[in-house]
């Protein structure tokens, strides 16, 4: 306490300074683990190397409470809300987007391993050059007129989702001097309870930018970080067409007692 608050939105520091902060936090975590502290499976909300987090994290611990009735259910989504073609990000305009075409497939499961069926999955991402279609993205990379980078789908009875898209590019951001984000796709997910709601990011295997990125590194545990990295799957890759990636998502455990029907989601909903 008493130290001045570091400016949260000025790219004043270079990568070496930020990388040192990341390493110091990592060492502290390793020491805590060696002393018997439990693994941290979620990102730290207080993670100073990500400058924008400094004034935007709660300083008090989350207050543990039991979910009440409304929190034990989730909003419902259906085919009225999401058209089947919205899962194909390559056909939203007049022509083919540029870049590396990819199929992305996976399952949404709850903490008990049950499929999350009939729920909304939303994704958004940069184009292959690392540019978002967003008025505040000023990165001077080309905008692809055939790529918006937004997709949605409803999970199948087995919790599965699938998107056809373009591999996003890495891009610079202004956290610090020479800050670059690893390529990633943003995911928004709902479970069977409101308490399972998460937004996260999926990354690609082998990215050289991982050690440098404070957002990825805000998850201090390597096993937990690895859960955000998709797996390349050549069986999903199709000849002359698209590379295949696979990424499963696990939400927190459900606290509500399920009825048997719910485990199968909204089967038949599309026949309405």
């Amino acid at each position: 306490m008493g130290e001045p608050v570091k400016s949260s939105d000025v790219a004043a520091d270079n990568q070496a300074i930020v990388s040192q902060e990341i390493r110091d936090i990592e060492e502290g975590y390793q020491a805590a683990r060696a002393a018997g502290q439990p693994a941290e499976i979620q990102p730290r909300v207080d993670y100073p190397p990500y400058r924008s987090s400094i004034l935007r994290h709660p300083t008090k611990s989350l207050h543990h409470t039991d979910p009440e009735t409304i929190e034990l259910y989730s909003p419902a989504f259906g085919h009225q809300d999401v058209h089947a073609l919205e899962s194909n990000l390559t056909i939203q305009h007049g022509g083919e987007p540029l870049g590396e075409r990819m199929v992305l497939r996976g399952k949404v499961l709850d903490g008990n391993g049950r499929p999350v069926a009939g729920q909304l999955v939303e994704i958004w991402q940069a184009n292959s050059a690392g540019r978002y279609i967003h008025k505040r993205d000023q990165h001077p990379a080309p905008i692809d007129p055939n790529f918006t980078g937004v997709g949605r789908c409803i999970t199948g009875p087995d919790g599965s989702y699938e998107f056809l898209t373009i591999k996003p590019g890495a891009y610079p951001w202004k956290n610090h001097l020479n800050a670059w984000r690893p390529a990633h796709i943003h995911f928004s997910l709902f479970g069977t309870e409101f308490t399972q709601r998460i937004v996260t990011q999926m990354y690609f295997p082998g990215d050289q930018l991982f050690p440098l990125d404070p957002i990825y590194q805000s998850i201090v545990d390597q096993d937990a970080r690895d859960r955000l990295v998709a797996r390349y799957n050549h069986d999903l890759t199709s000849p002359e067409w698209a590379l295949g990636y696979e990424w499963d998502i696990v939400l927190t455990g459900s606290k509500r007692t399920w009825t048997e029907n719910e485990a199968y989601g909204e089967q038949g909903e599309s026949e309405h």
Partner: protein
Amino acid sequence: MPASEQLTPTPGQTVGPFFGYALPFEKGGELVPPGSPNSVKLHGTVYDGNGNPIPDALVEIWQADSNGNIPDETGSLVRDGYTFTGWGRTPVGNTGKYVFSTVNPGPTEPGKAPFFAVAVFARGLMNRLFTRAYLPEDTEALENDALLSSLEPARRKTLIAERLADGSLHWDIRLQGEDETVFLDFHAEG
């Protein structure tokens, strides 16, 4: 099921700065059409630790209907103007303000204090935060509420919306600082 058989959850990540063209949707904040009978405006500002409004935050609510029933209707993303789905999502504006047009949630069981379940997202916020916005009127139900009664008075009041003279509900979200909103953990995820 014992904890050892549980799968480990996927970590969350910040919603980032560029969700604005992906997550917000037309009438996302209108659970009922503004100005319709019994409609209520729920509004407030999202603040950072210096007390400045955050322009790139996103607020979601999920609630019972005015009779306390939990909605199970689809149609939140493509609103027909009639179906109450109980769910809303809206980004804050440049001044950090959010607005929902909705109805007062009813008690889900007799004597329960009605509230909006809320999820908050923002650039710079590493993981979504859960909280609640309670209606201020049923003071006896508020006294008996398990969460509220476990909090000291100064913290408790961050979860109770204020009813303004125009009938609207005013409720601010403070991510940090004095009067930091109470944020919730349902699964002991730390």
